[in-house]
């Protein structure tokens, strides 16, 4: 029994110790920002690696999600004779919720896991130690550029997700199911407010970008430098950042709407 308590306590101590290290790590990344901005090329390179490489999956996913929303929405709305509101429904759902959330989840799976694996491998092959021994700060050179890139990429990707989703909704709602095109777009325009909807959605995606990158980079840098260590760190990144996105989404929604 005491044994069980001991292990329970030890597990929690480990968790909090790790959390503490993660926060110190974040602080070091922030402190490295000035040095990072002097290496602007690195940020651009990471923007390509995280943003552009995730673009295809985001666009395809956005299209399908928009189409599904239109199908489901139409079937419900038509019962009330309110199918003109389809545009508003699709756009609000995307901009407020699904855009940031699904983008956050896909980003965690595609870019986050890749970041963890890459940094973990750099650690396992002594590249990080090598940088330190060459008097180069890995925070400036490796970690912070990825953080900034993710921070910029995720909101941009979420915006594209929503935009493509609205088009997918148009495709199914207007072209396929025969909702009036004018109604689709004008209802959307009047229902979606900039501050209440677009800005709040943007804030969500910025927060998700921050958290997903933080988890991904920290897990990579903190992994046990062996093949098993890197692979379990990659798994942890996807699990933790997906949960973080969903949990934070609830929190932010409760605060915003």
């Amino acid at each position: 029994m005491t044994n069980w308590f001991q292990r329970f306590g030890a597990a929690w101590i480990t968790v909090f110790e790790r959390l503490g290290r993660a926060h110190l790590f974040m602080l070091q990344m922030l402190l490295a920002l000035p040095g990072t901005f002097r290496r602007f090329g690195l940020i651009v390179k990471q923007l390509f690696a995280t943003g552009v490489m995730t673009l295809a999956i985001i666009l395809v996913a956005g299209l399908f999600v928009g189409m599904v929303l239109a199908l489901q929405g139409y079937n419900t709305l038509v019962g009330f004779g309110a199918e003109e509101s389809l545009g508003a429904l699709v756009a609000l759902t995307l901009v407020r919720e699904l855009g940031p959330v699904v983008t956050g989840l896909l980003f965690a799976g595609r870019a986050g896991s890749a970041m963890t694996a890459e940094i973990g491998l750099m650690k396992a092959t002594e590249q990080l130690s090598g940088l330190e021994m060459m008097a180069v700060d890995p925070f400036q050179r490796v970690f912070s550029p990825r953080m900034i890139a993710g921070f910029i990429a995720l909101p941009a990707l979420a915006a594209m997700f929503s935009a493509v989703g609205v088009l997918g909704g148009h495709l199914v709602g207007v072209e396929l199911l025969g909702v009036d095109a004018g109604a689709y777009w004008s209802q959307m325009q009047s229902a979606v407010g900039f501050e209440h909807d677009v800005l709040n959605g943007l804030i969500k995606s910025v927060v998700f970008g921050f958290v997903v990158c933080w988890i991904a980079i920290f897990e990579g840098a903190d992994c046990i430098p062996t093949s098993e260590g890197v692979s379990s760190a990659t798994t942890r990144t996807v699990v933790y950042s997906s949960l973080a996105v969903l949990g934070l989404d609830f929190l932010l929604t409760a605060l915003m709407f």
Partner: protein
Amino acid sequence: MNTITENGSTLVRIKDLHFQRGPKRIFRGLNANIPRGQITTIMGPSGTGKTTLLKLIGGQIKPSQGSIEVDGLNVASLGRSDLFALRKRMGMLFQSGALLTDLTVFDNVAFPLREHTKLPESLVRHLVLMRLHAVGLRGAKNLFPAELSGGMARRVALARALVLDPMMIMYDEPFTGQDPISMGMLLELIKTVNNALQLTSIIVSHDIQEAMSISDYVIIVSDGVVVEAGSPAQLKGSTSEWVQQFLNGLADGPVPFQLAAPDYADELFNSAGDA
């Protein structure tokens, strides 16, 4: 004991070094002096903390007690910018080479120059090609690290470590996993580089014959302390049984072949239940 270093100048002075990782005490009062301008090899069984010792010298980790002085500076007490300034004067060759995988060989070697100097690109090119030529790999300048063999990667890493003209260079297990030809090349390179550039070289290794053949001074570490130190000839003549077992690679001696275990017959016949 330290015949060479008492009189000559010492570059790295390790005093009463203690270090532990978790419950494991890796160093327990290690003392050693590494002479300037020579090749010193630190030997010891794997897992004794040779890599850890190099990291301590490079200031990547701090001792829990005792001190390490490099060129008169106490590494652990240096601030960040002083530490970085010192590291620019130390080259380190990691076991795997630690080349940056997203850069070509040329860019890897140019990396320290581009990070730490404002030299014009034409001069960078000159310096890089010169170092690559010295390690015989000018022809590989456009390859990526993944396309190099292990021996080539180490030579490129050597070129990179040399490009800032350091005062000393540390090699972590440079001979492990090398075929006889690249082994010969590495040995030759380490020796020529040390003499031509008037460096201080510290090699960490358990390839005894190879390391002894080019070293001026050898330090044998085991169990957290220096067991014996001296010139290769002095060590070969050592009367310590442990040193003889280690140097000659004997399977049994003071270090038993068998890890401590219950009696063999007992275990075979009496305790069938708990295996």
